[in-house]
């Protein structure tokens, strides 16, 4: 082997590696950054009655002057409005609250489920896993509609409870925030169960046996061994539920009442009712910023775990 061949081969492998890394970056650029900048640009423009319903529109026919005019027409006015009007920050806060409570409820329900699945006989686990994934075979919209049928004053739940005589007046759950919680927890439960299951399944049984041998009661073993070891699953599950729940639109629209304020609905109103694409774009940009913080946090934790695993 001559010395000259080595750097050449290294050079080639560096390029290959770069090309390989470029693929996901290109993906990100085309499918995330480019649309984001379009939204960002619209958020800086003003609404008008035209097609498209905002101005300025970049006019390349006028050459450099066109670009300059376009640039001069952009401003931060819409963001100012978002801070002036309480409805917007109220929507953000209320979305965060609803998402946080739903995530917590989903965790409470999903943990015993995942735990039971991980403890089930090996032969049964694929079936249980299938049962968790099964609802995805039906569209989310249809499943949320099914909840309308269940929660209605004349719906299945009330008929059942009235039938067995547990209640004498129908319960008004439909069109309240409670219905929104039920809808979100139900819809996102699999996203919580699956990561929990995958981390609980990996749990080494001998650790629990050793703890029991040393006289640790089961609840103590759970809190000191099982739960800490399942934390990656807990965190992954919580983020998978929390992040989409913040921007949820369909569930609050169908199940919630008029007092349920969520940012997805506020955004919809700005876009469709007010026809104000610039303000709704500004809302979307801000929503992204609100969500980027927990996502970055999540990545950070994950990276640290990978480090620790090494």
């Amino acid at each position: 082997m001559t010395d000259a061949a080595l750097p050449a081969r290294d050079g080639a492998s560096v390029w290959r590696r770069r090309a390989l890394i470029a693929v996901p970056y290109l993906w990100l650029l085309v499918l995330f950054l480019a649309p984001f900048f379009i939204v960002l640009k619209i958020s800086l423009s003003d609404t008008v009655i035209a097609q498209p319903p905002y101005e300025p529109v970049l006019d390349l026919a006028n050459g450099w002057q066109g670009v300059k005019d376009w640039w001069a027409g952009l401003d931060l006015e819409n963001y100012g409005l978002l801070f002036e009007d309480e409805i917007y920050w109220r929507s953000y806060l209320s979305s965060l609250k609803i998402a946080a409570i739903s995530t917590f409820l989903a965790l409470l329900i999903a943990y015993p489920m995942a735990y039971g699945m991980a403890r089930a006989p090996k032969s049964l686990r694929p079936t249980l896993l299938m049962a968790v994934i099964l609802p995805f075979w039906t569209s989310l919209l249809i499943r949320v509609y099914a909840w309308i049928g269940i929660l209605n004053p004349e719906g299945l739940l009330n008929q059942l409870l009235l039938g067995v005589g547990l209640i004498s007046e129908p319960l008004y759950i439909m069109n309240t925030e409670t219905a929104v919680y039920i809808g979100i927890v139900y819809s996102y439960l699999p996203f919580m169960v699956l990561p929990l299951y995958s981390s609980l399944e990996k749990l080494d049984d001998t650790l629990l046996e050793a703890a029991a041998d040393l006289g640790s009661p089961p609840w103590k073993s759970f809190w000191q061994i099982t739960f800490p070891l399942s934390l990656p699953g807990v965190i992954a599950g919580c983020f998978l539920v929390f992040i989409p729940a913040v921007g949820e639109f369909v569930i609050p629209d169908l199940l919630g009442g008029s007092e349920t304020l969520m940012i997805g609905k506020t955004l919809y109103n700005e876009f469709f009712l007010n026809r104000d694409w610039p303000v709704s774009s500004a809302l979307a940009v801000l929503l992204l910023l609100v969500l980027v913080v927990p996502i970055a946090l999540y990545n950070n934790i994950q990276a640290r775990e990978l480090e620790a695993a090494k």
Partner: protein
Amino acid sequence: MTNGFRTNGLMAACVAALGLALGVGQALAKEVRVYNWSDYIDDQILKDFEAETGIKVVYDVFDSNEILETKLLTGKTGYDVVVPSATFLSRQIKAGVFQKLDKSKLPNLSNAWPEIYQRIAKYDPDNAYSINYMWGTTGIGYNVAKIKKAFPDAPLDSWKLVYDPENLKKLKGCGVMFLDSPEDLMPSVLVYLGMSPDWSNVKNVEKAAEHLAKLKPYITKFHSSEYINALANGNICVTVGYSGDILQAKSRAEEAGKGVEVAYSIPNEGAQLWFDQMAIPADAPNLEEAYAFLNYMLKPEVAAKASNFVQYANGNLKSQEFLDKEVKDNPEVYPSPEVFAKLYTMPTIEDSKIQRALTRAWTKAKSGR
């Protein structure tokens, strides 16, 4: 306006999408692409049109003006005929999304009802851009038995039924839904409060919003299509909604045969008129076929067939002799001249600052703040 259960609309959309796919596959020489409200036409009309003209109809549906408007403003919808409501049409004309109609290609316009077209001219000056498909009112729909039980001597023919807090309080227990559309609801609140229904007057609208906030505790939900279902199933006892939707809830309740009786009333203080208009987008790919379709829809027998099916009134005077008796003689569909004289129309809001103030007042009222 909105009609049909949303699920049905969805299914119809799926079927339409399938039809679109098949249509592309067959690549027929002539076709017209129509985008209309869900559950808003007798399918036989489309079949008859295809048989008579040899033009294939690719039919697609939407369930809100907002969705249609967003598509139109984005441009290149690919549709040849769309059906916005007049308040939306007016703004869309200003945005330049439609083309002026060449009336020489629409000889059947001679069947039009002058009184209706004159009202529409407020939105579409000289009726230059659109023809009328259907029109109706925004009034009160109620469950006869439930109202009787909750509120025996209820003023069923007045806005007092739903806008007087004392009255609405009595109906809270059996369910109340209002349209989630400020431009259709606010004017009637203004009328109830004794003001002009003109909802471009921000000061008055703010007063109306304050009043609405007082009603908030008794309102189950603001939604623009759910009330059809809810009313038909007996889940609510009163709603403020579109005439055709409520009449549709009525016939669905009858079909279901569970003893739910729905009725519609046009309050005697006056109610809002709305119009759904057919127009041709500026970039329509099949212009000749679009004219052929519009002209066909203007035939008296066809317009009557459409009205008989959906139970809305149409703007075609000559069609009236072909109408079913139940439709023609139903004062909820074709109001008497005295009632008609009291019906009002809304100007379209163009100033975005006013629009924002109005929507803001509306959101505030809805969230009870």
